[in-house]
């Protein structure tokens, strides 16, 4: 690293050293690969969002009058497939994780930079396959691909999408492997496990699930494909197979996949709450250990998706109890984050608004999750809009709030630019309000009995559906705004200092944007979130010099 320090030019950073297309497409720099991912996941978020908009427009009226039933079935399937496999699963790990894991452990890059680039190309191939499937007729099995509907009966591009998900799995596995090895072997001197930021702990836990769980879903979809194409009897009873076996295999991955989506958000929220309270996170050890604990427990609760399949009461009660157990550490985390603000120095910057928004929404998502784990109640609301509302509170209210909060927090580090504070706060509030308007009515719809994946519905459900669609409009606006002001800031935004928030974490010790090899001088390693350390006082004093007195933000 000293070699780089000698040749260090403060005007050259990882972005402006070379703008050629080739330098981007063949880059081995984890920070640039993060950008490749950010652009790709944003494109897929827009595609998935477009499908969501079609769904909400169709559901404005009880008659299925906007889209044909087959089109509607394709639209909601594609919304799920695109959002889950191409947006949510890669979002935080592949964008923020790629950018931050080496920075946060004080390394020059990830352990296997070439594999890292390869994983983006694999993801891109999977994305192209999905787009190909959309163009050539789409897919209508639901993102869950339940057999024998998917393996025998569906007439759509099931194989193409199954192959895409299979291929995409390799991208997840490679990224996960890369992070595991990086965190194990490339930590800076003195950066022991107990000093790692909680975001790193979350990435570690997520990577474990990615490496252990993804092969299962890949093989399962391959088997469904083999049944579809070769007529091998695995899941279709007409061929001697067992349709419930598919559900067991599918959820064995897809339930942990929920934690692939939410654990990274936990990591982001831990960073945000500590930074904007300027206080050591309350219960560091508990949060770190519970991330890994949840990752492991997450593998033994899958059958709570299947309580209505007619499974034995013994199995059902075991899975219900285990699911309840996993809820306990999750509840404690929410209390940890809240208690961190106690006696803190709480600033109301945009990322913090996302973080507290996350707390509120995730709380509702979590509580309704425990309700769903309760056997007698689940039977009634299973496969209704209650479930739809619940998982959107967790996936959108949790994972996407975490992603947006993280993007707003690390944007100055990634780009070297500041964005407009007021408009970004407006958009954070729009997202929060719009989200609740969209999805809260769906809890009521679900309890009233409206089943999910319905293209047309009885009239008594209309009023709440109108609320939901109105809310989705507000939510959509909240999502579109950042695309504009963040892009604007890329070109016109004010230059960002190294540590614009006055946050205590080692990625803020290097300039914004960082140089090619991340650090100019070896970073100072402290206890995690040590806001009593001299270093943070120096950094804030330094920051104050650069701000004109009338502009000093109190937050």
């Amino acid at each position, binding site marked *: 690293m000293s070699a780089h320090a000698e040749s260090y030019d403060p005007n050259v950073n990882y972005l402006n050293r070379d703008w050629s297309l080739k330098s981007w497409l063949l880059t081995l720099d984890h920070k640039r690969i993060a950008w490749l991912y950010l652009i790709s996941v944003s494109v897929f978020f827009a595609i998935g969002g477009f499908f969501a908009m079609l769904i909400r427009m169709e559901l404005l009226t009880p008659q299925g009058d906007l889209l044909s039933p087959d089109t509607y*079935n394709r639209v909601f399937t594609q919304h799920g497939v695109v959002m889950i496999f191409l947006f949510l699963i890669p979002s935080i790990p592949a964008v923020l994780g790629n950018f931050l894991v080496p920075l946060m452990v004080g390394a020059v890059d990830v352990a296997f930079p070439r594999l890292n680039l390869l994983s983006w190309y694999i993801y891109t191939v999977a994305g192209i396959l999905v787009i190909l499937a959309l163009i050539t007729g789409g897919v209508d099995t639901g993102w869950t691909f339940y057999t024998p509907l998917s393996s025998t009966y569906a007439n759509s591009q099931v194989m193409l999408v199954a192959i895409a998900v299979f291929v995409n799995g390799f991208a997840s596995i490679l990224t996960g492997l890369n992070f595991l090895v990086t965190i194990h072997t490339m930590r800076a001197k003195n950066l022991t496990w107990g000093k790692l930021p909680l975001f790193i702990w979350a990435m570690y836990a997520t990577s474990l699930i990615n490496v252990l769980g993804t092969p299962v879903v890949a093989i399962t979809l391959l088997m469904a494909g083999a049944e579809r194409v070769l007529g091998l009897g695995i899941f279709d009873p007409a061929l001697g197979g067992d349709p419930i076996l598919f559900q067991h295999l599918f959820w064995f991955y897809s339930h942990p996949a929920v934690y692939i989506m939410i654990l990274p958000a936990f990591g982001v929220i831990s960073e945000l709450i500590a930074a904007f309270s300027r*206080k050591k996170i309350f219960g560091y050890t508990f949060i770190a250990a519970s991330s890994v604990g949840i990752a492991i427990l997450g593998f033994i609760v899958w059958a709570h998706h299947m309580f209505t399949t007619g499974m034995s009461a013994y199995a059902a009660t075991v899975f219900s109890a285990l699911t309840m157990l996993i809820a306990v550490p999750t509840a404690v985390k929410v*209390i940890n984050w809240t208690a961190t603000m106690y006696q803190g120095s709480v600033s109301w910057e945009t990322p913090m608004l996302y973080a507290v928004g996350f707390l509120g929404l995730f709380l509702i998502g979590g509580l309704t999750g425990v309700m769903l784990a*309760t056997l007698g109640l689940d039977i009634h609301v299973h496969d209704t809009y209650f479930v739809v509302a619940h998982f959107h509170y967790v996936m959108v209210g949790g994972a996407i709030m975490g992603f947006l909060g993280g993007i707003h927090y690390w944007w100055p580090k990634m780009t070297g630019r500041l964005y407009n504070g007021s408009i970004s706060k407006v958009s954070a509030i729009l997202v929060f309000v719009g989200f609740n308007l969209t999805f809260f009515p769906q809890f009521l719809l679900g309890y009233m009995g409206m089943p999910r994946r319905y293209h047309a519905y009885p*009239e008594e459900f209309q009023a709440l559906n109108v609320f939901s669609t109105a809310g989705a409009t507000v939510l959509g606006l909240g999502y579109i705004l950042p695309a504009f002001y963040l892009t604007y800031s890329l070109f016109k935004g004010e230059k960002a200092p190294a540590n614009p928030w006055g946050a205590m974490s080692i990625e803020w010790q290097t300039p914004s944007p960082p140089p090619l090899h991340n650090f100019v001088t070896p970073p100072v390693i402290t206890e995690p979130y040590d*806001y009593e350390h001299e270093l943070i*006082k120096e950094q804030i004093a330094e920051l104050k010099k650069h701000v004109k007195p009338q502009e000093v933000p109190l937050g």
Partner: protein
Amino acid sequence: MIEMLKGYLPEMLDNLPLFPPQASTMAGEVDALTFVWTAISLVSTVIIVAAIIFFMVRYRRRSFDELGGGELHAPMVEVVSMAIPFVICMAMFVWGAKIFIDLERTPKNAVEYLAFGKQWMWKYQHPNGLREINNLTVPVDTPIQLTMTSEDVIHSFFVPAFRVKQDVLPGRYTTIWFEATKTGVFRMFCAEYCGSEHSLMGGKVTVLPKNEYDAWLRQEEPERADPVSSGEQLFTSLSCTTCHTGDSPRGPALHNLFGSEVKLASGESVTADETYIRDSIVNPRSQIKEGYAALMPTFEGQVSEEQLRDIIAYIRTLEGPPVAAPAGSDAEVALAISADGPSAEPKTTVPNSTEPTEAALSYASAAMVGGQ
């Protein structure tokens, strides 16, 4: 403007019922569980959100370089915040499990109806063989068990007013039970996504007062014979009688089969339930009984799901020792049995089979299914 609103508002509220009707014995129990969970959730949410807002305002950053206080040491907070959710979750788990077990355990006096799901319709069959499509008519205050199967993909039988739901699977039988407490017409949905017309695969459950139901049953002419007789006819016409008579070395007798333990050639032991009998007809070589050769051909594609049910209904009525086979061919014996019908069965424990009556009655008593 205000007048318009006044006229419109009650209509809007009418169209905004936030709760499904409670029309079964289980509905109140499920709702009570939901109410308590909702109350717990509400209280927790209010406490946490109040704390967040209070901390955000009370500890809002006062100056640019203000730092938070030192690390909060409050191990008790963590212990308590772990203990409270744990205790609540476990208590609610037990309550929820109890309701689930009640939903699983069909009352002994339940009357068995059949349901067949197929893309995209529901077919029902009453104990007397009467069939209905998409609309199921049942008597009030009577425990009803539906034995269901699918002819293609997975469907799910869901009646919100009863708070019950059960997936309907191809290749096996699942059951659901309910006891309607209110008369009226209630919506029924297919809850498991099943392809193009999934959202139209709904129907109604019409609950009638008992006397009206009986009158209705009498008035509706069953279009076909009762299940047991139909099953018996099939049993003959499909030549099942050739082997399954009791003294044939080719196939085991089926008397007293239902509910018994069967030792398979593979060494396994299985209980002869309805799914076992169904599998033995459509995929016989998967579970050959010990001591027999794998001779039986599959009847897959030759019998519909409804016909399978008829055959099972018939096999369920076969009780007592098999009829002693007189000298002669198996086929003759079989004909002798089938000519007499189920009422000519050897004496059984079913009380009302003592009077020679229509097979429907004997089937009705056979349809009183026990708990599992």
